[in-house]
């Protein structure tokens, strides 16, 4: 399913924050998790995740550290900051409003 550029971009922040709320993670694992969670419907171009992570880092929502992967290569790990956790709560409320609204209107109209 093609979700469109804008929807993918808009959902990137809450998704990344929510996944990091599950625990510290790194780029590849985050992409994999998104794909799992969406049942393969939400496909990101892998490279695009990193500018998003860097923006979140600049805004203090996530913190990053270099660590070692199992294969001995250097890898950058990201985790949620307290500020990021607050942001996630706010994001969640916002998306809940959108979701509720859409849900209500869809209950009344039938597209099928």
């Amino acid at each position, binding site marked *: 399913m093609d979700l469109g550029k804008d929807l993918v971009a808009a959902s990137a922040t809450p998704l990344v924050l929510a996944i990091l709320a599950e625990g510290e993670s790194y780029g590849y694992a985050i992409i994999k998790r998104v794909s799992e969670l969406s049942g393969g419907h939400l496909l990101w*171009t892998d490279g*695009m995740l990193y500018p998003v992570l860097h923006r979140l880092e*600049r*805004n*203090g929502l996530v913190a990053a550290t270099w660590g070692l992967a199992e294969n001995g290569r*250097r890898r950058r790990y990201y985790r949620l900051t307290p500020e990021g956790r607050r942001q996630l709560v706010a994001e969640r409320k916002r998306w809940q409003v959108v979701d509720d609204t859409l849900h209500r209107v869809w209950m009344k109209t039938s597209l099928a």
Partner: protein
Amino acid sequence: MSVPSARPLEEQIGQWRGYLRRRRAIGGPDVEELESHLRDQMTVLTDAGLAEDEAFLVAVKRMGSLDALSREFAREHSERLWKQLVVGGDGDAAPATITRTETAVVFALAAAAAVAVKIPALFGLDIGTASAEPFYQRNASLFVLPFLMGYFAWKRHLDGRRLISLLLAFAAAAIVMNTFPFTPGSDTRTLGAIHLPIALWLAVGVAYAGGRWFGDGGRMDFVRFSGELSIYYVLIAMGGLVFTAFTMMMFTAIGMTPDWLAEDWIVPCGAAGALLVGSWLVEAKQSVVENMAPVLTHLFTPLFTMLLLVFLATMAWTGRPIDIQRNVLIGFDLLLVLVVGLVLYAASARDPQAPPNLFDRLQLLLIVSALAVDGLALAAIASRISEFGLTPNRVAALGENLILLINLAWSAWLYAEFVLGRGQFRALETWQTAYLPVYSTWAALVVVLFPPLFGYA
């Protein structure tokens, strides 16, 4: 196996890494991070049964095209290629190229500025004569800055509404400077002439930033531009000095007195045109002499820190108070300006993500010692301010001192938080850029309010 595998895998990855490195928006650690991702992806694919080279192709494909990737990185890390950013459009990070049209426009504008300086001569206001001096002093910035603003308005395709409000600002400045009934030798007129360029520089900045003044790093880019421009301007001025010296020497050699040529034509017209040519050079030669201002900052921050500390130590050791002379406040104002400049340019070149380093601690020390020195000077002045009386010059100097003091005090706080690991460097950068309009607003107040307040004296 039908897939041709001419080159070993590592070589292919190396080549891919090389392509990434060539993109200015993608930094060294980013390349490493992306490569680590690529290898993770490849491991999973080969575990699923793909051959290594197939896995490589799929992983590269999933990473996205280099152009798209580099554009996304450029959006997030505009400081890495600030000058290449084409402002406007959909953020396409195409390298800025200086077209022939632009060169023509710039030289036409520079010539226009040079001619503008001489136009008043047609009305009997010859530059260099004593009677015309007040006129030129009042209007100096109005001869050049509108052209500079015009250049950026043209280059950034400024929308009509914004352009009109900027032009109105210039018109208002011209009216204020030329209709106020200043008394002869008026201090408020001199103050106005000094503060007007500071106020109008904001208008130039708004034009420079195009639509990005209220976000997206537009202001920081303008700070970078201002720093580079001042360096280019000094260089051009030095060249102009040599040019003038040769003009004088050669014509004197054949028994003529070319003073008028130098004083009335070469120096004023050159000074006006050089600002436009300098701005164009900053725009055009971006990668040639990139970011000189931060280099100078790194050179002089340790020196000034040392000077301030030695000064404080000497004062403490000898117990000598600051001798309050007439211009001492202005001197200390300039000291604060310098420190703010050092902080600003260090911030402009810093990677906001990097952890605090030794230089950040040095900057903090510089700010704190400057605050201490200024505090001592202010204390000395405060005790005698009633004795001196509140002249316009003193009120202006005091106001500026206060504005800079507030900036530095809060900067010190933010720096301390950052060095202690409790804050983001971004906060300092945001504070500095948010503060920029304060300088211009104060300068505008000095230009507009001081003359009536002090009876145009």
